[in-house]
Every structure is written in structure tokens, then in C-alpha cells.
């Protein structure tokens, strides 16, 4: 499968990664090579095979729905690039 620059730009947008227009042709070429490699999977007969969910058959554990942690606001915010008044700060989202 060949990926065009329009598709590459769309994927970059979905992934929230800024890609300069000049870089799109090379990116599209890489995608085409990788997806071409992946196309081999179409040779496999997968009729009636369930997609694997968990490699180890296990039932995920449950626990009581109660608070087990907390009061660590300073730790949560310690690595934030911009934290103010106990919050993560970001550019204005709603006009």
C-alpha cells in the first residue's frame, strides 16, 4: 500500500505531532515501506480466530472501589512544566 503525503499529514494531525510540509514525502515513503511489510499478514487465514486480548489467560483482579491514596498534590505537580495555584496550567482552551 502506498501512502500519499495527504494521508501522512492526516496521520500526523491525529497523532498531534507537527510535521513540516517539506518532511511529508519522506514520511509517506517510510509509512509505505512499513505498511508494505505489514501487508504480508493478509496471507494468513484468520477465519474463526479471536483477536488476542491477553497473552496470559487471566482474570484481572478486582478490589474494593475505595480511595487508597491521596493528599500528594505537591508530588503530582512536582514535574509539571507549568503549575500554578495547585493546578496544571495550559494555554486557554475555551474562548
Amino acid at each position, binding site marked *: 500500500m502506498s501512502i500519499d503525503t495527504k494521508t*501522512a499529514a492526516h*496521520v*500526523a494531525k*491525529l*497523532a*498531534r*505531532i*507537527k*510535521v513540516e510540509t517539506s518532511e511529508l514525502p519522506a*514520511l509517506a515513503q*517510510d*509509512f509505505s*515501506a*512499513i*505498511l508494505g*511489510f*505489514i*501487508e*504480508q*499478514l*493478509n*496471507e*494468513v487465514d*484468520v477465519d474463526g*480466530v*479471536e*483477536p*488476542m*486480548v*491477553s*497473552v*496470559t489467560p*487471566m482474570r*484481572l*483482579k478486582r*478490589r474494593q472501589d475505595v480511595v487508597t491514596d491521596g493528599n*500528594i498534590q505537591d*508530588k*503530582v505537580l*512536582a*514535574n*509539571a*512544566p*507549568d503549575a500554578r495555584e495547585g493546578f*496544571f496550567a*495550559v*494555554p*486557554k*482552551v475555551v474562548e
Partner: protein
Amino acid sequence: MSDLNKLTIADARDKLRAGDVTSQDLTTACLGAVEGSGVLNAFVHNTPEIAMAQAAAADARLQSGDAPAMCGIPIGVKDLFCTKAVPSQAGSAILAGFRPEYESTVTQNLFDAGSVMLGKLNMDEFAMGSSNETSVYGDVISPWRRENDTARLTPGGSSGGSASAVAADLCLAATGTDTGGSIRQPAAFTGIVGIKPTYGRCSRWGVVAFASSLDQAGPITKSVRDAAIMLEAMCSHDEKDSTSADIAVPNFEAALSGDIKGKKIGIPKEYRMDGMPDEIEKLWADGTAMMRDAGAEIVDISLPHTKYALPAYYVIAPAEASSNLARYDGVRYGHRAKLAEGDGITEMYEKTRAQGFGPEVKRRVMIGTYVLSAGFYDAYYNRARRVRALIKKDFEDVFAQGIDAILTPATPSAAFGLGEMADADPVQMYLNDVFTVTVNLAGLPGISVPAGLDKQGLPLGLQLIGRPWEEGDLLNAAYVMERAAGFVSKPAKWW
């Protein structure tokens, strides 16, 4: 005593317990070796103060007689593990400055056992790579060189810093992680031992996530016995990882009987690849003969879907990576791009991620985004998960036939030169994992054991694959292989 940094864990343990050396002696020797190893670029965040404090505590514990096997042993920690208050960047610019407020379960287990952390080890960015050339810290250089050649070689990846550090005797052992071969391939490239345990053996809590259904931690060591000792200390059931197995961790070292009489070793015909170098072919045949001579029964087996493992992996791993790496948004930790006048939150995300991620990570995140996007989810992602089920069934079928372990080459070649793959398309690099990736897809334990040198004097490894949860038996088979192969070569010191 000199050269304490060259000891194995087992020898160091015995000397520590006998009172012949102290952990502070060992740690001082290793810190000296680390200091002189800058050119290898293996250690990227040194923690000598932590190391000396831990060594002093370990010595006190040894004196009191309450000392587990790992007590006082100086190790390196792959940068993928979150270590409290110590930089933990996963080899990425996007986590620049990140100092976790918590400790990963695996490193906590090692510290509880008395291990000493010398520092953090270089790796491919987010563990995405097979040559340690995608790291924000720069390439790791292998201590190995081709005969009469000073070209810089890759130690493999993604745990390239771990492999280079252990092979160069900068530390006694190191932690690694393995999503598609990232412990076993670098171990094979550098003439040492690396084991990836069964999925669920080691807690993933606090290990920066790449592909959560494939990621497992494991040790990179100088011997199979060391791998057994260190793996046991790393494993535990952990309520903080919902996929962590709630089963007892056995004494792996006790499983090293050296006896594999009557065990059935499978040789999968699908691993005989077109164009496989003669040396790899011969190594594999020699390894097979060693197992036969040790009393094992050699059985030809078939794993029919092997060919589709790599393409399935390159759907599943990027898909999971694109989801896991969505958290790097410039809000909660790490890098945030400087914004221009009028930039909103979307520009903040896009610029932050464009600046923070390297080319290979971007490529994989975007491939993952594509295969999960509307209209392609079934064609790519669900198909790959179906193929993965078939790959796992291949292994279940041969184990049901009574096969105890499977013997394969660890890598399709010896280590290559740094930069040699720069012009190849990404798929060429992915082929490095052709023999290891099946094991991650099936969740099985796999170990790489050094078994010989190629004609240029570089190490080659063999891989043994075991039944789920039977790491003890697998380590024992590897122990037999190690003794039979008698691999003792070390890189000549040039750094």
C-alpha cells in the same frame, strides 16, 4: 584486591558473605570503571552518592547476617525504570528533567534485596530500536571491536547501555527490558546473558511503557547463574500492575542442576532463514549437538506462523505505543515547547511532541495511529491480534507434544557498525528481532546465551525459549549450554 568490577554476582556474593570484600570495595571499583568509560556512553546519569550510601547499608546488613543474594551487588539500571528523585528519561528529550516521585517495583525489589545502583543506563528512545542509535543521549558504543579494526560497533538495543556496561565490566549486572528482543539481542551482540521472563513475572509498574502487552523487564548478566539470582530478586506479584502474575517466585538458582537428560529440545525449521550466514547456521548446529551430548532428545518441530511474527509485531507494538505515548502532552511532566503568540492547546501538543520525540518514535507513534484509525482498525490491528493468537498457538502445540525448550539463533548476524544501517529503510533494522519477537508475542520466557565468535572475533548468541512460568527449567537448559559452549571471551580494553 583489584578488578572487583569484573566479578560475577555469584562470586561477589560468596566473597561478601565470607567477609573477603565489602560492598563499598565493590562499589568503589565499579564507580572507577564507570568513570573511565565515558567514550562508551553507557552510563548517562551517575548516582555515586546513592551507590555509596546503599553500599554502606548493604555492608551493615551483611555483617548482621541478614543478606539476600543481591545484597551489596553494584548494578546499572536502564533509564526506562523510574527511580525516585533520579532522572528517568527513557532516552527521550520529551522526559528531560523528569525526576520521578516514586520507585518502580522492579528497582524497589532490587533495593529491598540490598542491590547498589551505580546510575542510569543509556537506551534507545522509549526502547524503540535495535542498535541504541535512537537515544537522546547519543549512541552507545560496544566494548567489542572486530579484529584489527577500530570501527565503532553497536551493542544492540534497546538495552544497549545495559549490555555495553555489563560486557565492559562497569557493573556486575544491569536491568533491561524486552518488548521485541531488547534484552536478548544486545546480550547476544556483547557476549553476555540476557533473559526475558514470562509475561507477568516482573511488574511493569514504574517502567515507562512502550507496548504494554509485550513489555517485560529482566536481567543482563555475565553468567546464567547470575541471571537466575538477579531475575529472582526482580520478580514479584504486584497489585499495582494488573497483569502481574499472582504466583510464587521459585528459587531459580536452585534449578541449575546441570542435568537435562531426557529433556526434549525442539529445533524449529522456520527459523532457518534464507540468506542466514553460515556462521549462524553452524553455531545453531553446534548448540544442537551440545544439547544432544548433554543427554537431551533433539526434536524437529514446526512453528508455522513464524514468518508473520515481525509484521504482526509492527502493528501491535506501534498501536500500543501510540496509545501509551499519548500521555506526553507537555502538561504533566517533561518538555513543553515554547509557544508563539496565539498558539492554543493543540499547537502546544503538536510542537511539544514534534520537539520531544525523535524520528523513530514519531514514525512508530504515527504508524500506530494509522493502524488504529477508523477504517483500518479491523484490517490491521484486529488482523494482527488474530495472527498473534495463531503464533501463540504454534508454541502451545509444540509444548503439548512434550517439547521442554526450543533452541534458535538469538540474532540473524553479529553486531554491526554504528551508522551502517543509516541508509536502510526502517524494515531492515526491524529484521534484527526476527528470532526474538515471537517470544514476546506469545508471552514466553526466552534467554540468550553467548555460544561462539564469528570470524571477525565478535560474539554470537543462541536463544532458548521455555514454557510459560518455567524459567527455572529454561535457566537450567541455558546453564548446560553455557558450560558446553565454554564461552570465556572478553573484549580487549581499548576505552
